[in-house]
């Protein structure tokens, strides 16, 4: 059944808003964060209005309701990602998730000279923790280059880089290029040399159903706010045997069994890694978000986004001076269209587009090594999601053409 985009849009109150200059909002910054449906907003409000309490800590009714809601959300979210609640650790987002792998797993298991393989396509969140681990533990960090013609990973170089690797960290889908990497193949190749694999699914999860157990990766990092959930929460999905190799990262309340003045013992499983008061409202909101997403066939969602993005990119390529970075025409592209104009600087272009009501992202997108590989300091990026329409894309292309005609 085809998606009813107008019905979907009706779930998002913000999409009806008008900007201070009177222009109607056209939101094309979904790779930065998605908008939230009313059910997510309501679920979070209901928690604060009706049963706000700390979880896991008391015996009163509100605490019981909050704890039940928090753990029920874990069940919904882990189930959505094709795994069980014991393999899911709540984090503040994908960045903390990757840091948890670095400080919880790599610090315990890697030593000087051990090899961590990254790619040039990674977000800073999947680069800086490994650079720090290189400083702290002396691990060797290798970068797999991208082919700047096809905007895809150089898989021959990947195979070479795998030699002697202990850990491979690869982004599922590039936040800049919209390119989806062959993660299934990457997991198999990495495991064949005995390396653990971390897949950063911050951009992938809003576009396809990530099935952790069948993907086979050891770690999968996910961010809630890019898939209709609230900001401030995400998770790391971890295979049981990998979790057993992890040591504590953040320490303090909740993650302990017993604390004395002489020392502490820790909880086991995911509880060891969830320190302090949980993000209760956020978890509940994310649970509502995956329930909302679960009503759709994500293949249809992906196809819709891909149709809008590839049409937009094709039209933009006809506008004089525009260069597209990435290949939005590929079937597996995620709906991020990065572009530059030859004479209108990216920040200028973003401000001019904003005057028309179009919210696009500008900058290095926290992917400076990728920018270096592309030979540019920044790009503009229009990124589409489930609620964007072809009509919005048409008005964007028309407005962009007018802006370029006037300011170039």
């Amino acid at each position, binding site marked *: 059944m085809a998606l009813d985009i107008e019905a979907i849009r009706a779930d998002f109150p913000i999409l009806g808003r008008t900007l201070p200059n009177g222009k109607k909002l056209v939101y094309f910054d979904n790779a930065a964060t998605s908008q939230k449906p009313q059910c997510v907003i309501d679920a979070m409000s209901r928690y604060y209005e009706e049963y706000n309490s700390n979880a896991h800590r008391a015996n009163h009714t509100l605490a019981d309701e909050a704890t039940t809601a928090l753990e029920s959300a874990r069940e919904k979210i882990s189930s959505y990602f094709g795994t069980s609640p014991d393999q899911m650790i709540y984090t503040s987002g994908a960045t903390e998730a990757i840091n948890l792998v670095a400080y919880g797993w790599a610090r315990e298991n890697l030593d000087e000279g051990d090899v961590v393989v990254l790619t040039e396509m990674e977000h800073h969140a999947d680069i800086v923790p490994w650079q720090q681990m290189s400083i702290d533990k002396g691990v060797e960090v290798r970068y797999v280059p991208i082919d700047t013609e096809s905007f895809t990973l150089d898989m021959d170089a990947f195979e070479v880089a795998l030699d002697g690797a202990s850990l491979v960290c690869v982004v599922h889908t590039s936040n800049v290029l919209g390119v989806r990497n062959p993660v299934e193949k990457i997991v198999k190749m990495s495991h064949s040399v005995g390396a653990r694999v971390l897949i950063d699914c911050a951009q992938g999860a809003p576009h396809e159903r990530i099935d952790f157990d069948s993907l086979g990766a050891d770690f999968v990092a996910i961010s809630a706010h890019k898939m209709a959930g609230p900001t401030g929460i995400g998770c790391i999905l971890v295979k049981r045997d990998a979790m057993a190799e992890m040591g504590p990262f953040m320490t303090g309340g909740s993650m302990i069994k017993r604390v004395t003045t002489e020392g502490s013992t820790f909880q086991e499983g995911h509880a060891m890694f969830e320190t302090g008061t949980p993000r209760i409202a956020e978890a509940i909101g994310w649970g509502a978000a995956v329930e909302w997403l679960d009503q759709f066939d994500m293949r249809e969602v992906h196809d819709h986004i891909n149709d809008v993005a590839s049409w937009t990119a094709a039209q933009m390529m006809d506008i004089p001076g525009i260069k597209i970075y990435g290949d939005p025409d590929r079937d597996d592209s995620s709906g991020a269209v990065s572009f530059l104009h030859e004479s209108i*600087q*990216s*920040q*200028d272009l973003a*401000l*001019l587009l*904003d*005057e028309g009501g179009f919210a696009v992202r500008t900058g290095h997108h926290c992917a400076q090594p990728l920018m270096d590989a592309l030979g540019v300091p*920044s790009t503009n990026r229009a990124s589409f999601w489930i609620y964007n329409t072809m009509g919005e894309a048409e008005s964007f292309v028309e407005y962009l053409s007018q802006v370029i005609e006037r300011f170039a």
Partner: protein
Amino acid sequence: MTGSRKWPEHLDPVVEEFRACFDAMERYELLFDYAKMHPSALPQEEWNDNNQVHGCQSRAHVICSVDESGRFLLRGGADAQIVQGLMAVTAIAVNGMDLADVAEMEPDYAEAMGIRSSLTPSRANGFLNMFKRVREEAALLQ
């Protein structure tokens, strides 16, 4: 600088020119024109890490000094035309002023010009960071 106005009188015609624009796009167009007419632009060859204004989405560089008559001189450049245009307007304002007056100036001429977006924290970083640096350097040069 008189009354509630925190910019020098000689900037009034520029502020008025921007105020008279029909809409934001016309104001941006005018800023692009001012970017080209920068009275003391800093050529790209002189851009370096020391004179870079950090925290900007665009690249922006400023050099503040004292001219032959002991008055303030701002030279600056940015790759974004909107920031460069605001820099040009700022140079028109501050060049030739007493150092003490520059050190006390406020950036509210941009708001008076109707460049709303230049003053919001996430975007204004180009302009506001540049302005803050100009003011700090004027204080140091005294």
